[in-house]
């Protein structure tokens, strides 16, 4: 007689990304997941692009010209940002998983996010 509207279900993955009104941990989790998916996509894209190296100088260098295009640069910046965010948040998860800083996990998250923003700004400056 109970309805299933409110029950857990696989279709509810949007709940990973519903940190509205939630604590730092939810933002970290949502961020971690988005950057993870983005980085994995880029990993295989990157492996594919590198195959041009095997075809000799022409193909690869022509491709490099593309990297001047501002949109591609933005994409690369996004990858760099994702790597930094995911990396630092990963360290936070590993530290807390071993009981280090568990009571201060929020501060850890805010601290790491600050570092990420700074590094990302440096890279942006370098790139443009």
């Amino acid at each position: 007689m109970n309805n299933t509207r409110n029950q857990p279900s696989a279709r509810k993955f949007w709940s990973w990304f519903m940190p509205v009104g939630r604590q730092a941990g939810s933002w970290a989790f949502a961020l971690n997941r988005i950057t993870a998916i983005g980085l994995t996509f880029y990993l295989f894209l990157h492996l594919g692009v590198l195959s041009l190296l095997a075809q000799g100088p022409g193909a690869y260098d022509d491709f490099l010209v593309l990297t001047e295009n501002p949109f591609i640069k933005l994409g690369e910046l996004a990858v760099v940002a994702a790597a930094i965010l995911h990396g630092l948040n990963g360290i936070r998860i590993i530290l807390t998983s071993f009981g280090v800083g568990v009571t201060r996990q929020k501060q850890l998250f805010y601290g790491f996010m600050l570092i990420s923003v700074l590094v990302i700004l440096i890279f942006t400056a370098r790139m443009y």
Partner: protein
Amino acid sequence: MSQSTLSSSASGPRPGENTWIWLIKIATGPLLVIVLLLHFIANHYFGSMSSGLMTYEDVIKYFQNPIIPAIEILFLITVVTHSLIGLRGIILDMNPSRNTLKIVTWLLTILGVSSVVYGIWLALTIASKGS
């Protein structure tokens, strides 16, 4: 004291994740952070292009020292392992059925192994181009 009708799920605990998978994921994590840092620096500072990226010749020259392909292959293995275990974790959160999970696990393993093999071949061909 707990009655059989009281166990959480009829089929008992599902073996999709275990200590070793998790340990591999969190071992490759920090390793990745270090190697990625080197990779960034190598690619964005020593390259001859204005943006720091390496041209074809740069790459070939860079790969002459045999340490570099070794590091790049190690890097490839860790990043592929880490990302595919993580991806599998995300898929697990979609609550797949038992055989879907088996298929997914197989696909990811094949994808992982083949990209590592392809990476090793690529690294070696680049290294050999220099001689």
